[in-house]
């Protein structure tokens, strides 16, 4: 029954997506304002039904479909049963399809309000992407195949025909243990998908504009706004992924340049570049061709990332088992890249824009440097991720590209980006002089250098930490200097109170100031990373029960071992009490979790969060004979990193709101210039 429901949902969505494409193309070609609502509704309702069927099967422990039979267990508790829907390949495609359909629905609603050819063409593109993903779902990655031959646990043979005689196994093996260890699994993937899949929308507008041959401000405005939304969700998703890794994987880090992390970072970097260069096109009418390239590349990178992590080409927590989805995704990637760029080159004559920068010493120049740095950054991540694959495929030798390579290139690029971030916003448009720029930045520079000197004298002389503080304070200083200058100018002109003037200034150019909020978030991220990565301490030790050790100012006492069991897992760990200067801070329970009948323990760290940083404890081996082998790490100021990520994403959402108001004309926009 569930199998039938799910299959029906997929079929409806596939039909809806197909109709959306056809009717979208008809509308765009004929110019008649056809109704796209029906197709859109079919698409989104079908997707919702498919996801609902999957959830229903998981929540009611219905093992008749192959997905639950092979990835769920009756004992899996809430919310991990819900999260199991995206804990394996087929289900994650259902989530992908649902998110895509929801975005499509918002575009349909927008089209209903103000129908135009660009909107219709973009919907046709979204529909085509939907056809691909739902096509995958009904063919090579079908979660609703019904089980026709059950094993003791799980399903041996399945059939795509929902009317086949169903043999449901009594239970399934449950999801990957790593994916049922933290509630974040319920939130991180949907957030990431909202970002990742959301990047289809700007792509759809870009392709729509190219196909129609109508470049200009309209596609850019829509692509820019939809990128803001997707970018913000992607930022949150990446951040939560890092947090999940930190809380669940017991190595004490949050980012390992793992292929799947890189897969999410590459589109993020290129989308970030687009968010900046879109502003140049809006303000100065430049760089349209480059903007098309960025938007197309961003989408292509999302598909490349999906291919890399979902096809089994690369091993990681996220690469589910090998499946035949790889060639399909690769084919789609090729189609996207070749199709888009062919279309682009046919339109090359009309997309190229004529204005050029007057001087590199200008806001435009700063944006160009920013785009160059972000593109090189994205390229570094791309080549570092794919190089081992290519070398192995062509020469058969294994080469490794890991943290040392990425850090060596990404760190200097990031510092350069911070530098540009400090100068850019205060640099006038068109043409500036060094004297002008120095006059606007001299106070922030002095304050930043002072902050750097204080850090070097009081905290550490570690160059990465000192540089991150210096550059970070410079960026924050130049943003606040700019704000206070504009507010003062306004109070002088209008006689308003300082707060009223501040409100007018910030709401007057909301997009700009939201961007500066995002910049502040990036600064915090840089500082958090610099502290956690460079000033953390590490200790591997054996403690006797009742013994107290000292580590980085913490007094750690091994109280007792403990054992807990639930239906789905057994937990064996040790209880540690943590004091600082005799004052009780909390209890840590690093443990090993054993899921189902497995005798393989999944190490689960425990973290004591604090203002000066975290204490991170991992158990190495099960406790024996009254003593236990433990790993301790400190992550100084790591909360600054999380705060920075949230700040950055908040800036993105606020920028979306501000650009939305601009479009609807509710803003009394002022120029951002000083």
């Amino acid at each position, binding site marked *: 029954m569930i199998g039938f429901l799910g299959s029906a949902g997929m079929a409806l969505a596939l039909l809806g997506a197909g109709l959306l494409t056809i009717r979208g193309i008809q509308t765009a070609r004929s110019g008649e304002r056809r109704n796209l609502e029906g197709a859109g509704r079919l698409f989104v309702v079908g997707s919702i039904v498919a996801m609902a069927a999957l959830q229903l099967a998981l929540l009611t422990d219905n093992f008749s479909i192959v997905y639950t039979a092979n990835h769920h267990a009756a004992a899996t508790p809430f919310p991990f049963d819900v999260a199991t829907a995206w804990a394996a390949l087929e289900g994650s495609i259902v989530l992908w399809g649902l998110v895509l359909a929801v975005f499509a629905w918002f575009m349909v609603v927008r089209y209903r309000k103000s129908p135009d050819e660009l909107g219709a063409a973009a919907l046709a593109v979204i529909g085509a992407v939907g056809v691909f993903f739902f096509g995958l779902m009904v063919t090579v990655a079908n979660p609703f195949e019904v089980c026709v031959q059950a094993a003791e646990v799980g399903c041996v043979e399945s059939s795509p025909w929902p009317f086949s005689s169903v043999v449901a196994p009594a239970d399934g093996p449950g999801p990957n243990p*790593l994916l049922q260890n933290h509630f974040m699994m319920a939130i991180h993937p949907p957030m990431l998908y909202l970002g990742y899949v959301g990047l289809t929308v700007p792509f759809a507008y870009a392709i729509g504009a190219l196909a129609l041959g109508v470049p200009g401000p309209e596609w850019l405005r829509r692509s820019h706004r939809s990128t803001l939304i997707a970018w913000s969700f992607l930022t949150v998703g990446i951040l939560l992924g890092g947090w999940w890794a930190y809380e669940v*994987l*017991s*190595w004490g*880090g949050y980012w*390992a340049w793992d*292929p799947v992390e890189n897969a999410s970072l590459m589109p993020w970097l290129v989308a970030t570049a687009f968010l900046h260069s879109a502003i140049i096109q809006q303000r100065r009418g430049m760089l349209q061709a480059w903007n098309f390239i960025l938007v197309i590349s961003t989408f292509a990178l999302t598909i490349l990332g999906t291919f890399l992590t979902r096809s*089994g080409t*690369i*091993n*990681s927590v996220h*690469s589910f088992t*090998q499946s035949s989805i*790889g060639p399909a995704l*690769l084919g789609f990637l*090729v189609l996207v890249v*070749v199709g888009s*760029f*062919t279309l682009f*080159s046919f339109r090359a004559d009309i997309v190229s824009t*004529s204005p*050029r*920068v007057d001087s590199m010493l200008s806001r435009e120049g700063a944006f160009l440097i920013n785009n*160059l740095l972000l*593109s*090189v950054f994205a*390229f*570094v991540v791309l080549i570092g991720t794919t*190089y081992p694959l*290519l070398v*192995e*495929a062509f020469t058969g030798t294994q*080469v490794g*590209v*890991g*943290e*040392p*390579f990425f850090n060596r*290139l990404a760190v200097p690029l990031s510092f350069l980006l911070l530098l540009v971030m400090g100068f850019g916003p205060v640099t006038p448009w068109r043409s500036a002089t060094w*004297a002008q720029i*120095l006059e606007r930045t*001299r106070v922030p520079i*002095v304050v930043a*250098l002072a902050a*750097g*000197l204080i850090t*070097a004298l009081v905290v550490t*002389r*570690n160059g990465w930490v*000192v540089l991150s503080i210096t550059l970070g304070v410079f960026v924050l200083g130049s943003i606040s200097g700019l704000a206070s200058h504009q507010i003062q100018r306004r109070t002088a002109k209008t006689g308003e109170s300082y707060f009223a003037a501040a409100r007018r200034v910030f709401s007057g150019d909301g997009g700009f100031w939201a961007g500066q909020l995002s910049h502040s978030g990036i600064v915090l991220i840089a500082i958090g990373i610099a502290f956690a990565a460079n000033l953390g301490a*590490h200790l591997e030790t054996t403690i006797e029960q009742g013994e107290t050790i000292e580590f980085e100012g913490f007094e750690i006492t091994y109280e007792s071992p403990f054992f807990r069991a639930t239906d789905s897992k057994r937990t064996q760990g040790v209880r540690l009490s943590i004091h600082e200067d005799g004052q009780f801070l909390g209890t840590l329970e690093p443990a090993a979790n054993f899921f189902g009948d*497995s*005798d*393989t*323990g*999944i*190490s689960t760290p425990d973290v004591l969060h604090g203002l000066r940083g975290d204490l991170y404890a991992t158990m*190495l*081996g*099960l406790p024996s004979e009254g003593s236990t082998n433990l790993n301790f790490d400190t992550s100084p100021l790591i909360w600054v990193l999380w705060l920075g990520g949230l700040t950055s994403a908040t800036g993105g959402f606020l920028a979306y709101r501000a650009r939305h108001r601009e479009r609807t004309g509710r803003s009394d926009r002022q120029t951002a210039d000083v």
Partner: protein
Amino acid sequence: MSNTNRLFAVAIAVMAVALVFLMSTFESDTDRVEQLGQAIKCPVCQGESIGDSPAQMARDMMALVSQRVDEGASDQEIVDELLASYSGAVLLDPPASGSTLLLWLAPAVVLVVGVGVILWWRRNPTEATQPEVKEEKPRKLAPILFLAGSLAAIVVVAGFFVQDRDGPNTGAAAIDTDNLEEVSNETMEAVIAANADHPEVSGMRLALAERYFEVGDFSSAFPHYLEVAQSPDASDPQAVTALVRLGWMAWEGNREVDAAVGLFDEALAIDDTSATALFLKGQVLWCSATDLDEAASLFGRVLEDPTLESDTRSVVESDLDALNAGAACT
């Protein structure tokens, strides 16, 4: 430049110099063990370095790194040793030479090209006022050239993935990374079975066989050692280890002196300084009372090795004393 600006410029210069000076006096306390740990990929994990992974094999390797650092080995020596004895261990810090030179060059090339494009673009304004000046020909040619280029690229890439689809990573996807003590034996069996033909599976085979061996499960260990010993892909140290273990099992399990000695000799044919092969061959000859003189000379050769660890040395010395005193083996 105004006086104020001049003042600021001086202040900025002085502060910047002071800051750079302070940073330059910083001495990193990241120890070599940690750095080396970051630079080597854990063979049984999903993209983690041995420094990061809590897997047993990674921790063994880290212990080895730390031991070798204490013994004064150079980074290069340690890396080479690890890569030789653990297949699947890969250097994560690719050198800017050989097959990874391109990896380092490409970003630099992109940067230079990017700067070039920006400069070219800035200096060559197109005449927006005269669109008819644009030549028709290259504009129409461009898409066709692009398509042709893309097709060529697709053929190449498709070839690569067709080739790669049976690649080494397939079965290894079953490995669980973050297990506490170890990847379970069953998992390793499954991975080995899935990758049986992969040239680099020997390392994992050997690791698994060692586990069986350590708990005395000779019958499970035997086929894996045999496979490694016969595999043309196994490295020399791997083959030596496998042969030595097989020899010891032949003696310990079945008291087959000739078979055991034959296997030890095979191992010694590959590496005639292998301390374990020399010592165990001596043990077998002594314990079976086959050739006591030969046994004594073998123990002597073990002791010639200056890198022998002190506790091993004392064991061999006491055995040699016992042998010379005419005692039976212990």
